[in-house]
């Protein structure tokens, strides 16, 4: 096998790994039904709790394997191409997902944030699946438009911002889910039980989402600025309302809205979380939709 083939195989295997991890998390959620937030003092539920926890641990194990394969796939892709592996959609997605998985595992290791797992593995399975089936292109050199040091700066920043926004988006989504579930539980007069009860409190989810967004937003700002500087070199003007530029601007404005909303009474909480998810939609649309639907200066090799 050539290096490129190793890379392709690793990426497919990583996709399978993330799918397995996601379903293990789903099983964890399903089997956690009825379990309260705290352990029963009489120990009657202990066996069930152990089993649920085992599913979560297995999911983490699968995620670690998948993330390692994903990173291996990205590195070998770069080696096979003899350049940073960010020249097309396939390479960008696989790199971004590798970083999302690694950041998630770091959060897990450092702060025990296993609750991010279900969202992260779903995202990774979907995006890597899309990458290996739809976006895949063979290894090839870069077009002259990408021969620039700004290519590396611009894309690294975009990949990091992507990882931050996606992980933050998972937290915002779980915030919404938990807040609806709490409302339902209050209407029924019960305590929240099951998987959702094991999530951090709404305040905790909100704080994490806000901090993650606050981390990603300046990096996204820098991504756009670096892109503008590069555009000045490449096209003689730093802003041209090219569809990609327009949508990165839209993404920026939506996330700016999120940051303002999370400081404004009446928008805090659910409103802000919904805006954050809208921001994530514009982010992915900018990345996938713009390449596939519009022609512009950012279309290099089709996909």
């Amino acid at each position, binding site marked *: 096998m050539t290096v490129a083939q190793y890379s392709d195989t690793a990426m497919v295997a990583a996709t399978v790994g993330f799918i397995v991890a996601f379903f293990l998390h789903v099983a964890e959620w399903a089997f956690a039904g009825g379990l309260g937030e705290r352990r029963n003092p009489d120990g009657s539920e202990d066996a069930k709790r152990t089993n649920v926890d085992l599913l979560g641990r297995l999911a983490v194990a699968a995620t670690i394997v998948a993330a390692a394969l994903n990173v291996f796939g990205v590195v070998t892709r770069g080696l096979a191409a003899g350049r940073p592996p960010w020249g097309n959609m396939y390479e960008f997605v696989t790199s971004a997902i590798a970083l999302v998985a690694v950041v998630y595992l770091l959060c897990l290791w450092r702060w025990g944030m296993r609750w991010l797992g279900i969202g992260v593995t779903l995202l990774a399975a979907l995006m890597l699946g899309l990458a290996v089936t739809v976006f895949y292109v063979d290894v*090839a050199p870069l077009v002259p438009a990408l021969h620039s040091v700004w290519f590396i700066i611009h894309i690294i920043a975009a990949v990091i911002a992507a990882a931050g926004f996606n992980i933050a988006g998972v937290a915002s989504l779980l915030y919404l889910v938990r807040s609806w579930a709490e409302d339902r539980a209050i209407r029924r007069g019960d305590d929240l039980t099951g998987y959702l009860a094991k999530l951090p409190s709404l305040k905790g989810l909100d704080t994490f989402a806000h901090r993650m967004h606050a981390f990603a937003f300046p990096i996204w700002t820098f991504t756009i600025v670096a892109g503008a500087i590069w555009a000045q070199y490449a096209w003689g003007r730093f802003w041209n309302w090219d569809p990609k530029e327009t949508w990165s601007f839209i993404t920026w404005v939506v996330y700016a809205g999120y940051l303002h909303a999370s400081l404004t009474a009446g928008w805090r909480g659910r409103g802000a979380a919904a805006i954050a998810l809208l921001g994530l939609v514009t982010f992915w649309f900018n990345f996938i939709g713009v390449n596939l639907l519009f022609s512009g200066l950012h279309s290099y090799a089709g996909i």
Partner: protein
Amino acid sequence: MREWLRWGWAQLTSMRTALILLFLLALAAIPGSIIPQQSISPIEVMDYKAEHPELDRIWEPLGMYHVYTSPWFSAIYLLLFISLIGCITPRIAKFARDLRKPPPRLPSRLDRLPASATVDTPVDDALGIAEAWLKSKRYRTLRTDDGISAERGYLRELGNLVFHLSLVGVLVGLAWSNLGGFIGTVVVVEGRGFANAITQYDDFTAGAWVDTDALEPFSLRVDHFDARFETGRVQRGAARVFDAYVEVTDEGVTTDHLLTVNDPILTSGGTQVNLLGHGYAPNVTVTDGNGDVAFSGPVVFLPQDGNFSSVGVIKVPDGRPQRLAFEGFFFPTAVLDQDGPKSVFPDALEPELWINAWYGEPADETGIPESIYTLNTAGLEPVLGDGEERFRARMKPGAAFSLPDGLGSISFDGYSRWVKLQMSETPGNPVALTSLAIGTLGLCLSLFIKPRRLFVRLGDGVAVGGLDRSDTALGLEDEVSELAEALTKESE
């Protein structure tokens, strides 16, 4: 009336209005990415209008072909900026006052604060040690007989203000570039030159402050353009190398430059020269009916697809007794199949020139400008070949054809490449870029600095307490207990 104005202003500068304007701005930016824009691609706009006449009736009056300069888009961002300035100005004044004010007064009961602790056996000189501890953590302190108030994190508001002001700076830079800058393109064939004067441009837009008769005096000559394409299996035909060898004469000094896509030439007067595109210019020689050479040289053909199937017009107005004109197709790597000729690779591996011809009585010079890329056939007759069919010629380099009826002849001598150069001046860029750099820094401060207040109060023992002034700060309890520990007397 004053009340209404005051109410309107309060509405405009409210956070809710700012949020709504932000979403409107995002929404208003969308159509410009879907509908072709005049400033980006006038040709696409023309095609779009022809294809969707019923939509065009709606889009045209709404200004959908120039969204980003349209009144409604401008209205949204100008309102947003007014709202921003209205929001920021009072906060600047307040921040200036806060900076001069000492930390807030000591609350009477610290145990009501979000985090608090009591030290039963405090060290001697607890306040002195607490003050030193707080100062080492970069708190501003106010010490009274009762205790200490301390505050940190003033940079958050500073960063916030700086960031929002820098957005105004970006807008100023953009406006300056628009008013004081220009952008123009020109097609230059290998071996030919360009002098920076408005008459030489194919396409030119300048701001109101630009004296278009006194552009920076420089000139350049394109010696050679080297284009290479992927010949392997993967991404076959994709561009790999675009190198233009250009000689620039600037302030009397001539220097050689290698001009590539990401490496523009910057002249001494601040004009930037970019390489935007390239194409083919077949070299032809046309001999008229009198046997005189009526035209000789390269003719710029415009590429129609990724493999550079190109179309162009060869006009020979000086042909006598009849003037001549040719419509041509150039295929750098020509292949003939059932759909007709086409090019299958962007490089000139198998170049062919296909032409048909027109003739007519010599026309008067009218001085009316006409496109060099289209043929106005008024007063021209198609040249017919054998059997009254249209005369067509398919030529490889070196080939020549005689037109029927002694009208003349044409030879295809080879091809040159041309490059599309863009000259631009954007004087507002340094302002915009500096604003962006400072603004990004301010943004980071406003997001990462967490303002916090800590208090120490003497009583039975020593009470310590604190509160965060941002929602997402972490570690308040830890810091309060750390401070309490620092004030606890070690048991012997």
